[in-house]
């Protein structure tokens, strides 16, 4: 926040304890210090997530201790653990139920890349299907690493965002949201619109051709 002290305000006399800044910066300052996490904990990373919130590491020091299990009350989704393909539609639905402004931390190797679980059932990184702001390496990461990610995220929040939220309010964005609501179930999506699926299908066809 741009702070102007009373002595150096260029002629304008300000009383003591008065700061001059931008409202955007004020909004971002409020947001970053009152993050409400949505714990999407599916595996051992969730245990570290609990430890982060508990007394010893005490996430309350960073204003992020209010874990809510309703996505409508949250603005920070922490995906802790592997996400299987049966869970991904749930993850996307929860992400869409969260209100703007919202952020996402991908915690640990599995959430970020699938980790060692390179199998048919496990999604190879949630950032293929939902936006992610911070990645935390580790298997599982220690609470200090998650806290560092939250601090880094706070810096990011301070840099962007407006008090009116005008960055969310564009006509094209609202249209696209509506289109997504009308989108059919997860496995009926059009393969031609999904480049990753096309690559995977091509690789599978090549493997079959090489074998025969």
């Amino acid at each position: 926040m741009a702070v102007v002290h009373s002595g150096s305000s260029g002629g304008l006399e300000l009383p003591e304890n008065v700061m001059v800044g931008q409202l955007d910066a004020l909004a971002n300052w409020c947001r970053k210090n009152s993050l409400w996490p949505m714990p999407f904990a599916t595996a051992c990373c969730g245990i570290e997530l609990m430890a982060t919130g508990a007394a010893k590491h005490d996430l309350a020091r960073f204003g992020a201790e209010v874990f809510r299990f309703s996505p409508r009350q949250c603005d920070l989704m922490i995906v802790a653990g592997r996400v299987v393909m049966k869970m991904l539609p749930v993850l996307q639905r929860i992400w869409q139920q969260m209100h703007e402004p919202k952020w996402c931390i991908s915690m640990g190797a599995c959430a970020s890349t699938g980790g060692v679980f390179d199998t048919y059932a496990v999604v190879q990184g949630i950032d293929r299907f939902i936006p992610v702001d911070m990645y935390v390496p580790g298997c599982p990461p220690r609470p200090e690493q998650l806290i560092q990610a939250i601090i880094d995220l706070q810096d990011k929040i301070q840099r962007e965002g407006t008090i009116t939220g005008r960055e969310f309010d564009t006509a094209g964005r609202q249209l696209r949201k509506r289109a997504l609501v009308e989108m059919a179930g997860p496995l009926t999506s059009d393969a031609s619109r999904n480049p990753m699926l096309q690559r995977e299908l091509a690789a599978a066809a090549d493997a079959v051709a090489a074998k025969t």
Partner: protein
Amino acid sequence: MPSMPLAVDDILAGLAARCGAVETSVFRGQTRVVVPEPRSFEALAWLKEQGFDLLIDVTCVDYLEYPGAKHRYGLVYLLVSTATNCRLTVRVFVDDPDPTVKSVVPLWAAANWLEREVWDLFGIRFSGHPDLRRLVMPQEFTAHPLRKDYPLQGRGERHNFPIITRDHS
């Protein structure tokens, strides 16, 4: 318990008399018996009458490219008699195409979800099952992923989802 092996021998003899040729073997004190597929329900029903009142598990092994294997799929029924603590492993072999056995849900209600799991992961059809839906994979899934000819990394199912970007959400 000295009386138990005798009882098992009697049961195996009775099984052989009722269901034709059965292979039996013992491994580390556990008795296994192979029942021909057309008579499997009859054999299991008779075993239940003999006191095997608890069905521990129904599972399956895919013997594709297994050395010396004569059949593709080997179903495994693990039975226990809660009165005598006697255990019996019943094997039933089935083959492609359309491997099918008769469901044992009428005998043991526990078979309901166990057979659904085998159907889901191996594609063994259980005729007469009251509700043969997939158990663990999504309903839209088309493959049976624990078959040996299914690739470990799948056929792209794990990537077949809509992509939500910042603009979409």
